[in-house]
């Protein structure tokens, strides 16, 4: 439990109430996950908390893909685990198919878990090396008591076929497969009980580009064939753009911008999104060398002691003293419908030159804050 005093959690932050249309598959409402930092061995005293996720809200319709991008440590994986209830959120609500699942017990969660599955980043660590592939893929069916042994076997072989593996490899062990094939096994396992929602936590980050393309194509085909809904987490903006309908950009445990894919990539509003996009190298020698990346100063600050007000202000090229470090920006509508960003001085257009990016009246953030 967090013992953080209420006045420390920025009193100015009042999340706007979520507007629900009623047909959302998943609603994440102001979810927070704080990990305690303790000192002492016997009498553990909480001295601080890591605010890994600090008030994130979004909704997801059936058949939609929400991409979540952000750098390491921005809280995107913690958020995924909170959605799956693998971690208990510190605060906030998670509503799945109209039902609040935030406070369900493990036993109550079990039927819900049939509807949501997860694909993990590391295809080497996420498969038990001592179990045969048939067992690994069939395990969700067994856990939920679906079908007899022979039915499970048939279903597993069907799944192997769906994800493009040889059904005869039923009795092999994970080490007999390559990285891309293992990730296919992870996908087959996630599909086993026909879930509605699949949370993909960096499913292609560990793969080579050609294999990455195979898995991305597979995920898209499966979505089309089975009407799946994805939460797709990645740090690669190109990959997220390829697979997502909507994209959420996270920084230090907060959503800084949410928009439809095309709107976000055509006209990013938050300076952090702009900096991320300008930093992606282009596989084209002419366009690539012509682009001028906005090089951010320093590193992402520690989530134990995050900056005051706007979380991005110590690194922001558009920093305005007395505003950005005093008043916390709220997600507000900018540009086309459904496009929201949390910034006092959003970008006016895209692409921007370095001067335009900096904008008028911007100052260098205070040097003390800039150090790392």
């Amino acid at each position: 439990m967090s013992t953080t005093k209420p006045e420390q959690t920025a009193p100015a932050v009042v999340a706007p109430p979520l507007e629900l249309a009623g047909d959302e598959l998943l609603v994440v409402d102001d979810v927070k996950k704080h990990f305690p930092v303790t000192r002492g061995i016997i009498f553990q005293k909480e001295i601080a908390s890591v605010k890994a996720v600090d008030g994130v809200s979004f909704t997801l319709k059936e058949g939609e893909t929400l991409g979540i991008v952000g750098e390491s440590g921005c809280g995107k994986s913690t958020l995924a685990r909170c959605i799956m209830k693998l971690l208990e959120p510190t605060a906030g609500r998670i509503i799945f198919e109209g039902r609040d699942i935030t406070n369900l017990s493990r036993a109550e969660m079990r039927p819900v878990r049939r509807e949501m599955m997860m694909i993990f980043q590391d295809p080497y660590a996420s498969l038990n090396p001592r179990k045969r592939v048939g067992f690994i893929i069939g395990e969700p069916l067994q856990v939920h008591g679906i079908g007899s042994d022979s039915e499970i076997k048939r279903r597993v072989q069907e799944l192997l076929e769906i994800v493009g593996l040889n059904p005869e490899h039923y009795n092999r062990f994970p080490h007999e497969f390559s990285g891309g094939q293992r990730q296919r096994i992870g996908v087959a396992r996630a599909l086993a009980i026909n879930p509605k929602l699949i949370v993909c936590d960096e499913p292609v980050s560990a793969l080579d580009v050609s294999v990455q393309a195979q898995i991305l194509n597979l995920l898209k085909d499966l979505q089309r064939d089975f009407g799946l809904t994805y939460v797709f987490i990645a740090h690669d903006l190109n990959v997220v753009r390829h697979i997502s309908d909507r994209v959420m950009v996270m920084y230090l445990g907060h959503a800084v911008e949410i928009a439809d894919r095309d709107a976000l990539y055509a006209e990013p509003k938050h300076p952090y999104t702009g900096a991320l996009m300008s930093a992606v190298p282009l596989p084209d020698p002419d366009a690539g060398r012509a682009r001028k990346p906005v090089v951010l100063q320093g590193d992402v600050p520690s989530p134990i002691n995050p900056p005051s007000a706007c979380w991005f202000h110590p690194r922001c090229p558009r920093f305005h003293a007395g505003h950005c470090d005093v008043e916390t920006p709220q997600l507000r509508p900018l540009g086309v419908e459904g496009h929201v960003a949390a910034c006092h001085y959003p970008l006016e257009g895209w692409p921007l030159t370095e001067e335009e990016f900096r904008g008028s009246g911007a100052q260098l953030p205070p040097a003390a804050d800039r150090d790392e």
Partner: protein
Amino acid sequence: MALLDVKDLKTYFRTDDGIVKAVDGVSFSVEKGKTLGIVGESGCGKSVTCLTIMGLNNRKTTISSGEALWKGQNLIGLSPKQLRSIRGDEIAMIFQDPMTSLNPVHKVGSQLVEAILLHQDITKSAARRRALDLLKAVGIPRADARIDDYPHQFSGGMRQRVMIAMALVNNPDLLIADEPTTALDVTTQAQILDLMKRLQDEFGSAIIMITHDLGVVAEVADDVVVMYAARVQEEGEVRNLFKRPNHPYTWGLLGSLPRLNQDVERLVQISGQPPSLLFPPKGCRFHPRCSYVMPICSQTEPELADVPEATGHHRVRCHLDQETKDHEAAKLIEGTLAEAS
């Protein structure tokens, strides 16, 4: 004369299962002040090529042949002592993982000083001043305080800066960077690439950049070598390679990239898996996965031949006729290859 001239380099590993031909007849050269990009998927031999040049493979289990002429001197077969005087001095290396390539129990300052004292005959305090200058040059804030920090007190990007500083201590003529930004976030990657570019302008070093990220290669390299299954499949000036790619494998690599500025419904995928280097396929090594495969491809391996009508250096190893190649390359560049297939 090129700074480094690699000719028919072969590196074989003896294993319990047989001989793995990790590098099998690779040739390329690096000019002074230029950047050479080596691209390919995991296991294609790009890292082993550079480890062989540096003499860093296990001597007991490795068989190396061919030439790596460094300023006219063949590095292959030099004694460990001779290599040590070149390594870290004239040729320096940056490794992929900044978390594991610094010694965690020594302060970063003393690790830098050690590298300086190994090759230069100066006092300890002069070496420390030099270390401090380098940390400042690679953009570490408050360098005078942080020089006495331990590696764990630095973030990933900062550690990679320390590694670059360490590689630069003796103003190397050649810097070999093995996936220097793969473990880093994009904004940090932009910082590190920017830094390497500026340092290259300042010190005039040549760089060999090993990476699987075609975006990085397109932006920093002057020349590119595409490796597949221990062999060079295509090489040439960066514009030739990206504007008129001539090998089906290169098309696959370029087509499988989702891009910020292009919409495709399906990505081009290379079917299948890279071959085992214990038993590489007969003929062209790419033919089992190639969608343009012809009968001749499984019989004879094509030579690495000059591409006709190329402006500047461009060579490719493929049996396809030039008309098909140019047609497919043009289709790919327009981004239509994906829809058509």
